[in-house]
């Protein structure tokens, strides 16, 4: 494999998160009873005509914007003609000649190096219906027929499976964050095909291409590319050649398998869809769509890091859209953002997972969260105590201090009071003091334990620790 340079391009289909389908008023939904979300238009009944869901155009404009694409101002739809049972009209309405977005890019980072993945074009089209094979029979579920899709096609500009994976991760992050799609590969709302060819040197012409269709997860995209490069290299090493072909990734085999050899280019007999007039995209429309784009992951990342949030917390926050959105409300606040992120990703996340809730389902208002962060930060509330009262904090709207009081959590923060206890403990444990002075660190832990015992755990641990050290000097 190391003898070859791979050339990789990726095509991704993404289902758009709209209320209704692209060309009819049927609901766009997943996991409903088969054929319950259909009407005469989705079924391609004679005499029916498509209408155009304006929401689809807006989401496509949004996608083109976040993918740094140029946006076509005047475009039309085309018919792609082919017979297949999952294609109700036996033509698919798509954009062939005038894709809405073109010449874009996505920035990825692989092994610490930044790279741009270039987007050739992205276009709008309708999804087909879902077919399920049962023995001799094929069952058709038209709920998916007419679900709006965008197809995003990269230039053949990637050379490793790592890059392809990074691109897909990034793409998913962008589309998910801008509310364009759920991007759930397991539900098919994001589907990827990879085109792979290899050659010896940069100066060689491109090798024969194999297309791997409908890969079910990002990691399998990586795996299938690696396997495909290996397979092609073996063929070339043996002095053989192969024909352009379509393959699929077989989960069980963990390898790609041949679907069909491409004899000639497909003849889809494209022509402009006469039932949908030309679409004009105005500058105003693009502007108003642009305004609906929330802060994107890269910007969040930069902001979080600049506020002192650790790399790992930043990454974890961005992986959790709703926590990140919550966190974004706090960016201007004068608090410890690291503490805030620890709280969100730690105890609060554990609570949310356990209760299957979103942070927005809790009573934790911005003001109460700020109070909480500050109480933790100045050691008024210990993390041990937090665990005890977290449920109450997230389920009532009293102030955190009130809750602490009601729950009997006191925290002695009075310097004099703690110092008095510490002096007493030091006097009572001269051996430990000697041990400490002889460099035995364990002694301080013992002394701290005694302090906590004496104060029934109420002494502020940080203060107690500091005072203890002072007194031992």
């Amino acid at each position: 494999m190391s003898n070859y340079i791979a050339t990789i391009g990726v095509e991704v289909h993404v289902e758009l998160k709209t209320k209704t389908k692209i060309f009819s008023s049927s609901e766009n939904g997943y996991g409903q009873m088969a054929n319950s979300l259909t009407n005469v238009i989705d079924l391609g009944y004679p005499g029916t005509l498509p209408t155009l869901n304006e929401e689809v155009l807006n989401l496509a404009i949004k996608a083109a914007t976040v993918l740094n694409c140029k946006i076509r101002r005047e475009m039309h739809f085309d018919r792609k003609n082919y017979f297949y049972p999952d294609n109700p009209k036996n033509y698919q309405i798509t954009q062939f000649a005038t894709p809405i977005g073109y010449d874009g890019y996505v920035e990825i980072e692989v092994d610490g190096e930044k790279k741009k993945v270039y987007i050739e074009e992205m276009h709008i089209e309708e999804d087909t219906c879902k077919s399920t094979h049962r023995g001799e029979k094929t069952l058709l579920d038209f709920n998916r027929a007419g679900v709006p899709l965008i197809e995003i096609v990269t230039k053949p500009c990637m050379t490793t499976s790592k890059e392809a994976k990074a691109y897909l991760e990034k793409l998913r992050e962008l589309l998910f964050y801008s509310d364009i799609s759920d991007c759930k590969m397991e539900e098919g709302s994001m589907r990827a095909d990879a085109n792979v060819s290899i050659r010896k040197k940069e100066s060689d012409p491109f090798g024969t291409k194999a297309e791997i269709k409908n890969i079910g997860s990002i990691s399998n995209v990586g795996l299938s590319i690696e396997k495909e490069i290996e397979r092609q290299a073996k063929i070339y090493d043996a002095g053989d050649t192969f024909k352009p072909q379509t393959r699929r990734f077989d989960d069980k085999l963990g390898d790609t398998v041949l679907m069909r050899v491409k004899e000639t280019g497909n003849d889809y007999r494209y022509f402009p869809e006469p039932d949908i007039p030309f679409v004009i995209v105005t500058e105003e429309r693009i502007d108003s769509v642009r305004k609906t784009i929330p802060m994107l992951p890269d910007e969040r990342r930069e902001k979080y890091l600049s506020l002192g949030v650790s790399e790992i917390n930043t990454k974890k926050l961005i992986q959790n859209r709703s926590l990140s959105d919550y966190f974004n409300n706090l960016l201007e606040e004068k608090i410890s953002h690291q503490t805030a992120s620890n709280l969100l990703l730690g105890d609060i996340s554990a609570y949310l997972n356990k209760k299957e809730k979103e942070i927005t389902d809790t009573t934790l208002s911005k003001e109460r969260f700020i109070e909480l962060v500050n109480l933790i930060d100045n050691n008024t509330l210990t993390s041990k105590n937090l665990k005890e009262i977290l449920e109450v904090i997230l389920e009532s709207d009293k102030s955190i201090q009130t809750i602490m009081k009601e729950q009997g959590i006191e925290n002695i923060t009075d310097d004099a009071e703690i110092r008095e206890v510490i002096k007493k403990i030091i006097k009572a444990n001269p051996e430990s003091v000697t041990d400490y002075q002889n460099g035995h660190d364990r002694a301080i832990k013992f002394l701290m334990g005694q302090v906590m015992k004496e104060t029934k755990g109420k002494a502020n641990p940080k203060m107690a620790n500091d005072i203890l050290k002072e007194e031992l000097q």
Partner: protein
Amino acid sequence: MKYLNQPIEEIHKLLKAKKIKPIDLVEEAFDNIEKSDCNAYITLNKEEALKEAKELESLPVDNILFGLPIAVKDNIVTKNLRTTCASHMLENFIPIYNATVVEKIKEKHMIIIGKTNMDEFAMGSSSRTSYFGAPHNPWNKDKISGGSSGGSASTIAARDVLFALGSDTGGSIRQPASYTGIVGMKPTYGRVSRYGLVAFASSLDQIGPMTKNVYENALLLNAIVGHDEKDLTSAKKEEEDFTKLIGKSIKGKKIAIPNYFVSDIVDDEIIDKIKETEKTLEKLGAKVDYIDMKYLEHAVTLYQIIAMGEASSNLARFDGIRYGHSKENPKDIRDLYFGTRAEGFGKEVKRRIMVGSYLLSGENAREYFYKALSIRDDMKQEFKNVFKDYDYIIGPTTTTTAYLLTDPMDDPSKSFMDDVLVIPVNMAGLPGLNIPIGFDKNHMPIGMQIIANSFEEAKIYSLASALEKELNLDLNPYGGEKNE
């Protein structure tokens, strides 16, 4: 007592005064259809029509179309009423929704009497490609009534009913109207919703009214027009009464006759009749010029490319999976496709699908289809230019009068030549109307076509009605329809 041969205002008065009921008209219509015996219908809606007529008795007679029977071409879908497109493919197809035009005529409380015969999927010019046999021309039952809206033309000419809907992709309303001596309007593309019209060539198809006279034609157009959010190609226009210019003087109107329309492709008898009509128009104060127009002679070629290309795609949905004919016990999916379409479609439809697929295939798309689209734009422009100087373009609707049902059908290009004069109007998306202007030596009707600029249907009716009044022809095949 017959009512359906009386002026529409008279019928309306009688209905309003409760002297007659809608059911009288419905019964009379079915009686007429039976007596005419022209095979004009594929499906009669007898039971339902009588039931609807009964139900109407309790409603106020709120508009001039109230309670009147109407015939609907069988490529316009009607809920619970078989819609076949004159094809074996849809022989047993019962739609589960109504076309927008059907909803509109129902709003006016018109009663659908039946579904009229036509060329299979509107592909043909004599209605002889119908799976159900061709309709006859009431003027001579051995002759064609034209196509593809041949059944609608036949039933109007025979005076079975007052109103019929047709569809016009390349002359399919105007040409049969000409052959049968009736008034047929192809409205501006976008004027009438296409939702529920089984598509032949989507960028050309248009539904229109077919009636025995101009006034009734305008009334039916009033009822069926309007923007429809279910059809993105339907136009947003202010509501308009298409009868508003009827009876107004045409003095000073400027009329153009393209030389191509009176060239040697047209029978002498017809050219003579056009020249006579030209005199009549001048007598009425209009000014007539002969002009040269570019592209007209290419219209048929362009039409073939665009219409067949679009048709090959539009008819792809008939695959035996969801509705319509389906091959029994297919071996596999390929067998289902091939078997269903081989059995379900007739010869002419198959021919057009094949030619259309070829024209869109690979490099051909650029060579033929896209080129045709571009020349179509030039042709539109050419018409617009003429309308800068003229109010109307006129000419014969057809090159011959109706010919024999037994004439050979083996030359497919002949069928297109029947439509050579009407096709340019579809290509340009303009409104065009056939008005009868006389008869040939065998007393078969001769028609004239009136074309105006986009959305100028009212203006067309104005000229047509002036001519209709002046010519005062007896257009009833059975006689007795001349105003004294």
